[in-house]
């Protein structure tokens, strides 16, 4: 078992609604995705702050992705937009700290679409794996 688990961790902050539902759909449909991905469920993506994102990197995350509801469909009106501001701010901080900005990603996913979720996750994992050695 140990050999199949990769050491790198990509933290996926998913909101409780569209994003988490598509994550669950991927699980129900048995769609495989990288074992590096560690989902962390939060009530809304608007809860995320640069401090939390930096903490993930400080703890050794290879990359972080914020996954939320599509535009206009946030359960709490504008959490996904708020999160976009945080995403931009955190990218600026990561750049200053010498990290590749692409190690932080932001995606909005429709509820229940496991395939879209899988495709996005694989895409994000590829980007992060490509960029992680380019600081």
């Amino acid at each position, binding site marked *: 078992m140990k050999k199949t688990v990769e050491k790198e961790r990509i933290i996926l902050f998913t909101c409780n609604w569209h994003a988490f539902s598509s994550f669950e759909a991927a699980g129900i449909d048995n769609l495989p995705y990288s074992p590096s991905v560690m989902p962390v469920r939060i009530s809304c993506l608007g809860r995320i*702050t640069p*401090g939390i994102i*930096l*903490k993930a990197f400080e703890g050794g995350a290879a990359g972080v992705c914020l996954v939320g509801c599509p535009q206009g469909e946030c359960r709490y009106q504008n959490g996904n937009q708020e999160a976009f501001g945080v995403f931009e701010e955190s990218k600026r*901080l990561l*750049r*200053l*700290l*010498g990290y590749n900005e692409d190690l932080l990603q932001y995606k909005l996913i429709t509820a229940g679409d496991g395939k879209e979720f899988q495709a996005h996750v694989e895409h994000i994992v590829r980007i992060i794996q490509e960029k992680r050695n380019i*600081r």
Partner: protein
Amino acid sequence: MKTYPEIIKANQAWLCIDCGKCSSVCPITLHLVDGYTSPRLLVEGAVTGGEESVIEDPLLWSCLTCQRCAEICPSQVQFSNFIQNARQLAREKGHSGQCTHSGMVQGWMRMMTDPGLEQKRLDWLDQGLRTNPESDVIYFPGCLPYYDAAFAQMDIEGTEIARAAVKILNHLGIEPAVLENERCCGHDPYWQGDMDTFRKLAELNLEMISRTSAKRLVTTCPECAYTLKNTYPEQVGGLGLEVMHLTELLAESENIGRLFPQEQNGQVSVTYQDPCRMGRFMDIYQQPRKLIGQMGFQLVEMDHHRHTSICCGTSCWSTCGKLNKDVQAERLKEARSTGGEKLITSCVKCQIHFKCAQSDPISGQDIQLEIQDLTTLIAEKI
């Protein structure tokens, strides 16, 4: 590691005569809503009740370490220093203050302790600014680029201050060295009692600075200036060069003469906020006032100025709430009541905290006043 009896003795806490002068000037005590605490009660608790009493006191983490109480104390109880020592001990027991901004600032400070970090922090250096890595003057911008990135929505002067500082130094014929990989000076971890982070940051800075041939280090942040000048020699070792705040350098007679050959006459009145680390900690009161006067501004002092100046309300990115906003609002009201058109300060943190209070949609309406850093003001005038 010191013990409680040792820190009580080292900071003269046992000499407290219960006079309560500290309580009457403490900005936190003044604005407390629930419960009551004061430097006097905390010290009394430390001497009579010991460790538990100090840990339970809310002032342990909400103290601004502004030195106002220590300055007025007839028994010279070093309260700010006592708080620093007590926080260090409390941390060992797993206690800590509440970080503001979800611990973002503490996060980047801890991330900077990585020796392999290759920061990209010099994007603000314009082509028109001249720097020289072999220079005998180092300019230490501190966390300015980070504040710029983190508080962009508040329209603060972050890297503008850094650009202004290099522009002024260039004007004086100095091409400073700016280190690409300098770390946070460690002021905030130190005053939060996080000695592990502080030592790691300080050692990295010491090593980097000792590799240069510089004789002077200039900074635009009072906290960096105080930490590099006083805390480093006490805790990890001296830098072996002269550390000064930019205003100290500019107020030297030859420099002020070159910046502003003649004292200008102007009608614009301004007021000045003394940053705690610069005023009470380093006794730099005269230099900024001299520069403001030489530029032709009419300086109107607030009721609390120089050694009685009031802190900007938050310290070390920790425990900020209604109480702190009240301190800031009251200070800004005092600044407005002078009739000055601008509030000048020499510390970027004062600016961030005041602008944060001003951005409140309700209480911010009564406290609007233009806030500017002295460095950018000078750069505009030369």
